[in-house]
């Protein structure tokens, strides 16, 4: 038995050991008395104290003291229920907001996926110093799979545009996955079977599909006899072999309705060469590290394999290409910019906690004054400052614990609602895990120190009447609320700006048709013929005013971005490949120069913003661009592929024959575009029945894009309002307290004939500087740190004066009101009564 275990035994059997000790000492005394030994008799002293000293050897006396303090604290809190309730509520909000935010982060980035051995899963992406690509050629994936010894398994997933199931109006989301996908994740089906590497990894095998649990319920009413039946996807027949589990965790959080084996992709997408193409990225690659292998070792080996691949296909491998691995066993593979967002959210929620703590600190200080009598008595009977501090801090700790428990409940509720609203993966649960609980414990301690430490110290030293502490608390509250309000105002402005400002192109009356010719193995010449036919048929439809081609349509699935340096400044250039009709279809004005001519090459049209950045006010028309192109025109700015960023620039090149298989048709209609969809669909189908186009209304795509922004702005505004209300409650409390302390002074001043305004100034004067300093600190802090918000501001400057002014005015008005209400009550004081009081 080690010493620690013995110590624990003493703790658990404290009462018995204490009795034994007592009996020992009593016996000692009896013997000493019997034998009349003088030197023993003299040393008797206080038996209780002697016993306590002996017991201290066990090392558990602090528990006794703590439980004594806790009991006392609980009695104190129960005796003032109003204060306790306010304090717990304020803390519950402050801590609850933090708990929700952390739980969300925990779900996304920390919680391991409920799959087999999530720690060894890695996501593998193709990189080069210039290019970031999420998708890889399937042929390369196979090459890596066959040669990498550091990976025990390689999985690939290919997302495809929604597919038509039977002749439903609503298409189904579909993905192709390698046959080992489910086996590697250790997924067990709800019904039937999932992919079997020995049976389904073959292009010639009978075509099969696996249904997602949700789709099975939605489309097939949860009918168990669906297994074994045949369905038609884009008119291709396939057998349903199984249904995924209800709480199915996928790699990268993708959630298609239908899964198909990737080996059978050429069957489902007739004519596709996606599996054999060595250049175009079509699949996402995932791997499992072999036992004992680190990510660095795997990256090292893959680099050597990339070099080997370059020898085989020199054209298809980029200069400096390498494979980057990221831990893949979480809901989200975190990118540096996501951590930035997380840090920003953490900062905002911590600010709320700061407001709550400052608020509570003020309340505690005020309470300290009303408890002067009690504490005075305790000091008089010999309590040390330390002992009083410990007692007061224990009280704060108890409050913090109560607040945390309520905060945890609040956070759990908020998260549960959010998960339901967001249609999150079913395996995610709002129930706090050990990480969240640890976080809450940490928060409890931090909060207790923040709001309890300084007041306890001040009160223990009997300095609670000093105004400095109170002024500091007010300044802190004002500063933190100010930052929160400014951020909220900026985000609201940004949403407004994004929703109602002109993105530079018309989207209300535009329809896009993506026939996906490349996916069906169309050669450039065949694609050109198809598109020509399609365009001329579409032009014949009533109401169509213009039809054009574009490679990267607005709100499309692919975005291309060149990180360039223009005039010494880094600049993101968004390139696009279009035909001459495009600018008219999208309503983008040609400001200078001319449009593309048929068959033209080596020319480029730039956006006004690019022209300004590159040529600084000179006319760029006729100037060389990037060596081999000539600028022929300047068009208006249009954030086609970068809705969120205002300071981006665009360049347009004429689409060439080689681009044809990737082109998307955009159509402008005179009236409402909705009615045109069936007609357009009919035309596409009649041209080639194996092509299943994705037809979209740009306005719905735009709305969809904006929804998340609106939601974020709403959430942040909510947080901002909560912070301001917290601050207002705190200030009302503090002012009411200050006034009640000085009620006699107010009465005397009034009695001597002071005007009400003078009295108000005198009473509230101590808050003037703290409020001004707090406001300035808040504005300064917001201005310095809000640059990280730029991505979410849709082009609104992070120093937008309107947002700052609004925030400051709202806050100032709130503060004035919060101070005025309790102060006014003081002015109505019954002078005689106030002066007669004690």
């Amino acid at each position: 038995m080690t010493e620690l275990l013995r110590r624990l035994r003493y703790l658990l059997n404290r009462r018995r050991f204490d009795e034994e000790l007592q009996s020992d000492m009593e016996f000692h005394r009896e013997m000493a008395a019997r034998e009349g030994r003088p030197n023993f008799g003299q040393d008797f002293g206080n038996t209780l104290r002697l016993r306590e000293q002996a017991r201290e050897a066990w090392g558990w006396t602090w528990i006794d003291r703590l439980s004594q303090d806790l009991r006392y604290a609980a009695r104190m809190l129960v005796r003032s229920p109003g204060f306790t309730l306010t304090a717990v509520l304020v803390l519950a909000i402050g801590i609850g907001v933090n708990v929700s935010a952390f739980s969300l982060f925990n779900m996304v980035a920390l919680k391991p996926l409920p799959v087999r051995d999530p720690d060894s899963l890695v996501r593998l992406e193709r990189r080069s110093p210039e290019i970031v690509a999420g998708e890889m050629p399937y042929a390369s994936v196979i090459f890596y799979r066959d040669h990498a010894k550091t990976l025990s398994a390689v999985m690939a997933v290919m997302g495809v545009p929604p597919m038509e199931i039977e002749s439903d109006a609503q298409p189904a989301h579909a993905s192709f996955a390698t046959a080992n996908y489910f086996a590697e994740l250790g997924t067990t089906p709800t019904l039937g079977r999932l992919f079997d590497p020995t049976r389904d990894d073959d292009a010639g095998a009978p075509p099969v599909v696996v249904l997602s649990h949700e789709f099975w319920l939605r489309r097939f009413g949860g009918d168990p006899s669906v297994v074994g039946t045949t369905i038609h996807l884009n008119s291709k027949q396939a057998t349903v072999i199984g249904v995924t589990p209800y709480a199915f965790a996928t790699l990268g959080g993708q959630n298609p309705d239908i899964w198909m084996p990737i080996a059978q992709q050429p069957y489902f997408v007739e004519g596709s060469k996606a599996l054999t193409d060595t250049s175009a990225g079509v699949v996402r690659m995932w791997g499992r590290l072999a036992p004992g292998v680190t990510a660095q070792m795997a990256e090292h080996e893959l680099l050597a394999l990339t070099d080997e691949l370059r020898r085989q296909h020199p054209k298809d491998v980029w200069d400096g290409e390498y494979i980057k691995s990221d831990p893949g066993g979480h809901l989200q593979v975190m990118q540096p910019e996501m951590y930035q967002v997380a840090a920003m959210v953490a900062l905002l929620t911590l600010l709320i906690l700061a407001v709550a703590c400052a608020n509570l600190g003020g309340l505690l200080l005020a309470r300290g004054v009303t408890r002067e009598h009690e504490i005075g008595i305790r000091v008089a009977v010999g309590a040390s400052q330390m002992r009083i501090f410990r007692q007061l801090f224990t009280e704060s700790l108890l409050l913090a614990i109560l607040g945390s428990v309520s905060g945890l409940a609040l956070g759990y509720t908020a998260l549960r609602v959010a998960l339901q609203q967001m249609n999150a993966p079913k395996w995610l649960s709002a129930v706090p895990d050990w990480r969240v609980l640890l976080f809450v414990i940490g928060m409890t301690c931090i909060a207790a120190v923040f709001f309890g430490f300084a007041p306890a110290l001040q009160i223990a030293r009997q300095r609670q009447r000093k105004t400095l502490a109170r002024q500091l608390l007010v300044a802190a509250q004002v500063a933190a609320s100010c930052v929160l309000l400014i951020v909220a105002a900026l985000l609201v402005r940004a949403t407004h700006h994004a929703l109602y400002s002109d993105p530079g192109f018309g989207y209300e009356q535009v329809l896009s048709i993506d026939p996906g010719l490349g996916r069906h193995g169309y050669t450039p010449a065949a694609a050109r013929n198809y598109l020509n036919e399609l365009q001329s048929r579409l032009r014949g439809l009533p109401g169509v005013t213009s039809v054009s081609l574009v490679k990267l349509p607005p709100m499309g699935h692919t975005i291309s971005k060149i990180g360039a340096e223009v005039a010494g400044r880094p600049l993101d250039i968004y390139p696009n490949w279009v035909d001459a009709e495009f600018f008219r279809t999208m309503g983008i004005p040609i400001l200078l120069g001319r449009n593309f001519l048929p068959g033209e090459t080596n020319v480029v049209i730039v956006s006004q913003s690019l022209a300004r950045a590159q040529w600084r006010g000179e006319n760029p028309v006729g100037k060389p661009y990037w060596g081999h192109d000539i600028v022929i025109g300047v068009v208006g700015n249009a954030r086609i592929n970068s809705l969120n960023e205002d300071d981006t620039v665009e360049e347009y090149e004429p689409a060439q024959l080689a681009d044809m298989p990737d082109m998307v048709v955009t159509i402008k209609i005179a009236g409402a575009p909705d009615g045109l969809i069936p007609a357009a669909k009919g035309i596409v189908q009649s041209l080639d029945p194996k092509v299943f186009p994705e037809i979209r209304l740009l306005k719905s795509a735009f709305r969809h894009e904006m929804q998340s922004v609106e939601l974020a702005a709403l959430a942040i505004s909510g947080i901002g309002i909560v912070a301001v209300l917290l601050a207002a409650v705190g200030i009302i409390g503090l002012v009411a307290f200050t006034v009640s302390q000085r009620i006699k002074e107010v009465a005397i001043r009034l009695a001597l004939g002071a005007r009400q305004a003078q009295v108000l100034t005198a009473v509230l004067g101590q808050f003037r500087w703290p409020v001004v300093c707090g406001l300035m600190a808040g504005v300064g802090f917001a201005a310095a740190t809000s640059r990280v918000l730029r991505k979410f501001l849709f082009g609104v400057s992070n120093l937008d004066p309107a947002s700052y002014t609004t925030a400051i005015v709202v806050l100032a008005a709130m503060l004035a009101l919060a101070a005025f209400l309790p102060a006014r009550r003081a002015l109505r004081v019954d002078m005689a009564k106030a002066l007669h009081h004690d």
Partner: protein
Amino acid sequence: MPMVDTPKPIMPSGTLPMLILRVLHSGSLHGYAIAQRIHVLSTEVLAVEEGLLYPTLQKILLKGWVTAEWGISETNRKVRFYRLTPEGRKQLKTELAGYDRVTQAIQAILRTA
């Protein structure tokens, strides 16, 4: 009530555990007997106060050098007897060896300096 004096350091500091272990070497004793034995064996030079004896006993109980068991005192009272454990025996040996070395060193200084 007599005044409580702070006990004068009669005992060389840190030697009480060793003395307790030593007197328990020849058989188990109760607390009072330990104090008495030390007092008697030291020809009444050393006195062990209650306020020092019991905390020290608790400490060496925790260390596992002695165990306590119930027994009957000479006055027919149920009382705890402390007994040396094998670990306590080992501890006593090392403490005695250490103490010997220290006292010899001190003696050497006192003789020559």
